């Protein structure tokens, strides 16, 4: 069973990488571009024997992949 976890900085936290990419694209003429947000995507493959895979994936995302002080995350079965 596979889960996709996406982790990114919360909107109120400055994302310097996204800002640098936006500035660069702006120089290339993509002037309609207002913002770029960078995220990390993880694909978790869980054992079929896991009786509660949704909870396992969520726990891994919350306690390990994301640092919830500054990052938000989504978990989706794929």
């Amino acid at each position: 069973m596979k889960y996709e976890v996406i982790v990114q900085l919360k909107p109120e936290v400055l994302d310097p990488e996204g800002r640098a990419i936006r500035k660069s694209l702006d120089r290339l003429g993509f002037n309609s571009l207002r913002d770029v947000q960078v995220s990390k995507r993880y694909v978790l493959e869980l054992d079929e024997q896991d009786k509660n895979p949704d909870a396992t994936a969520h726990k891994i995302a919350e306690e390990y992949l994301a640092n919830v002080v500054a990052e938000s995350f989504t978990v989706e079965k794929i």
Partner: protein
Amino acid sequence: MSINKRIGILQFPGSNCDEDCIKCFREYFNTELIRIWHQDDVLPEIDGLIIPGGFSYGDYLRGGSLASHSKIMDSVRSFAQSGGSVIGICNGFQILTESHLLPGVLLRNDNQKFVCEFSRLKVAKGKSLYHKVLAEKTLSVPIAHGAGRYYIDATGLKRLRENGQIVFTYDSETYHNPNGSLEAIAGICSENGKVLGMMPHPERAVHELFGSEDGLAIWQAFLATIS
């Protein structure tokens, strides 16, 4: 003051300031240094613990994140929670926040650069021994990091201020904030004042030939926290 103290120093794959700390302690303080490998089960008998700088586990996931889940850390947590003295420098600070032994988090620098320079540190107001020993000082201590931007939410910041947990700030008024840290925070301590995390490297400022000896006062403050 520091005679016969047993100081542990954690070593992770990718730690690279451990030997500098050991050399510094051998040179200046009468202490016994004990190297502790990250896969050890428990800490040996120690009076204080150093978590050195470097790039543990290649900074995978986030700086300090994988290290915070390594085998030795359960014992480090118990040591800190039972009032042990711990100092985490640079990557060691990241490990302490990722382990939730200190609040907040260290993010990529706002300028997208690895900053490597002397920082000018101010000592904030507070009640810990670090505040007392270093009171009113301005210190010149090097920094070398890509992810030193301290961040905490508004509630957390209020708590830090009320508890007097902010120890060092970058002198952003007369010099600058090198990484975009919230409130120019460079180092904080736990509520009991025994666990300190700081981005600057005191072990790199212990001799006039290094350009500064101000790190020695920080080590003296660390040793003072060991009762």
